[in-house]
């Protein structure tokens, strides 16, 4: 059953990435095309998911919105993993004052609950794709740094590491060849859950009006739809479903990977 969930997660994500990559080819309309006569029209043959407040095609906007979600998810997770692994291995391997400094910075960033700091940063810098990525990356690396540091502390005194040092391997070689390969499993698992978290956070920022402004995003579509729950519930329904399915897909995959990569959880 667990394996099945992981696979269904992978399928959902593969489909989503495909949709995002081919958005311009498969979207039936230009997502920005306004058709005032089709204002708030419910789903029909021409517009399978209906039209929004300005008569724009909801399906096409949803397809293009996938791009923002996937792009922000990948870029932020990529930056977070790279920087987090770097900082975590530095702290874990060097120890002492460096470790202390890095962990105090981590503590400070963790003292802001959830996406509070991201809301504040995008709120102050102004809403844009770049600022969303910046705000989420400022926080994103912290979890990976803690994870990698903890793992490195637990294995750096093990025999195979001591053996490598005994035969004269330098610190860089020990980290890259001996320590990091052993912490990659948990990092990959956390990165998968991280994608879910980042996509949810981007949608939250967009919902609050702090996301990218010139392209359709699921969060902003949902926010717009919230004003028409009574007369045109389809406006909020589809972007909501899209966000939930995507996040669910990454959570399924994360659970599946964790079972595979971490035998302790079996």
């Amino acid at each position, binding site marked *: *059953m667990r394996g099945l*969930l992981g696979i269904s997660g992978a399928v959902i994500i593969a489909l989503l990435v495909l949709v995002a990559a081919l958005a311009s080819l498969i979207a039936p309309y230009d997502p920005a095309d306004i058709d005032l006569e089709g204002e708030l029209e419910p789903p029909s043959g021409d517009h399978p998911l209906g039209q929004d407040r300005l008569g724009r095609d909801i399906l096409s906007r949803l397809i293009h919105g996938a791009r923002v979600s996937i792009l922000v998810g990948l870029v932020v997770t990529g930056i977070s993993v790279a920087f987090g692994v770097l900082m975590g291995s530095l702290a874990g391997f060097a120890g002492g004052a460096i470790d202390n400094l890095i962990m*105090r*910075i981590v*503590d*400070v960033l963790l*003292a*802001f*609950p*959830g*996406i*509070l*700091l991201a*809301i*504040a*940063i995008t*709120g*102050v*810098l*102004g809403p844009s794709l770049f600022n969303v990525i910046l705000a989420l990356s400022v926080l994103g690396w912290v979890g990976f740094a803690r994870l990698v540091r903890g793992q490195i502390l637990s294995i750096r005194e093990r025999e195979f590491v001591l053996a490598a040092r005994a035969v004269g391997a330098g610190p860089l070689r020990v980290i890259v060849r001996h320590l990091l390969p052993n912490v990659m499993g948990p990092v990959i698992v956390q990165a998968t859950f991280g994608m*879910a978290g980042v996509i*949810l956070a981007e*949608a*939250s920022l967009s*919902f*609050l*009006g*702090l996301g990218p402004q010139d392209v359709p995003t699921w*969060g902003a579509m*949902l*926010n717009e*739809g*919230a004003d028409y*729950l*009574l007369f045109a*519930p389809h406006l*909020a329904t589809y972007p*909501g479903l899209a*966000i*939930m399915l995507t*996040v*669910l897909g990454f*959570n*399924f995959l994360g*659970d599946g990977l964790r079972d595979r990569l971490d035998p302790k959880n079996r």
Partner: protein
Amino acid sequence: MKRYVAKRLLLVIPTVLGLVTLVFFLVHMIPGDPVEVMLGETAQDADKEQLRRDLGLDRPVAEQYVRFLGGLTAGNLGRSFFYRKPVAEVIMERVPATVELAIAGMIIAVLIALPLGIVSALKQHTVVDHGAMLLALLGVSMPNFWLGPLLIMGFAIAVPIFPVSGREGLASLVLPAITLGTALAAVLSRMTRASVLEVLREQYVTAARARGLPERRVILKHVLRNAMIPVVTIMGLQFGALLSGAIITETVFSWPGIGTLFIGAIQSRDYPLVQGCVLFISLAYVVVNLITDLVYAAIDPRIRYQ
């Protein structure tokens, strides 16, 4: 215990100092001239100068920073221009609504999570267990800005039992509390399940069974009591998630708490109020975490000696 408390308190100091510093520099991150951003480009030069002086922005950054710290120790967070009142006063007016929502969300989460987690652990690898955990995964993946509108469509519009928005009476609390509590319920039920499973494997549980105690008694007295310790800790630590979730939930339901105050402050570029909200919410979070840690150490002696 005293040593542990002292150590834990000392650790809070650099965190709070870092937090305050970051919040101070938030306003200095504003691209361009903050005064112009706040007043608009058409503002009179005299007004701009006035505001610049009021905010102390005409002073060197170091001096501003020291003044900011000095103000904080006296509980002074500056003045909100939108409300034309001290920031601290504006925030305190909104605190009860958010606390009320957070507590109600926590209660909902516990009411759902504990039975769900306990039952799925006791019935591990059965349909009940798989179903409950699938439900939990759904709950974590459900953004509250989507669950909120769904609940409004269902229980305020289609079947109008509860009000769509606002804060009037207990009925208006129900939908926001469910919206806020769901994600936490999902996290807590997974935690509860894992914790109960772990305790079930302990030798003292086997010993209790070997002594011939009825299964009911084993579960209630020996398993659940011990399994609840980490769950209570997670509840405390998740209070932060609840606070940041409240920002979105309050926005969905126009709930007059700190969340809507904060978003409103961003929209009206009321930066002293933005700073005040960020500071207040994160300090509340730090304090709750601190209390959680201390309570945990008090009830579980193993922690103190680590």
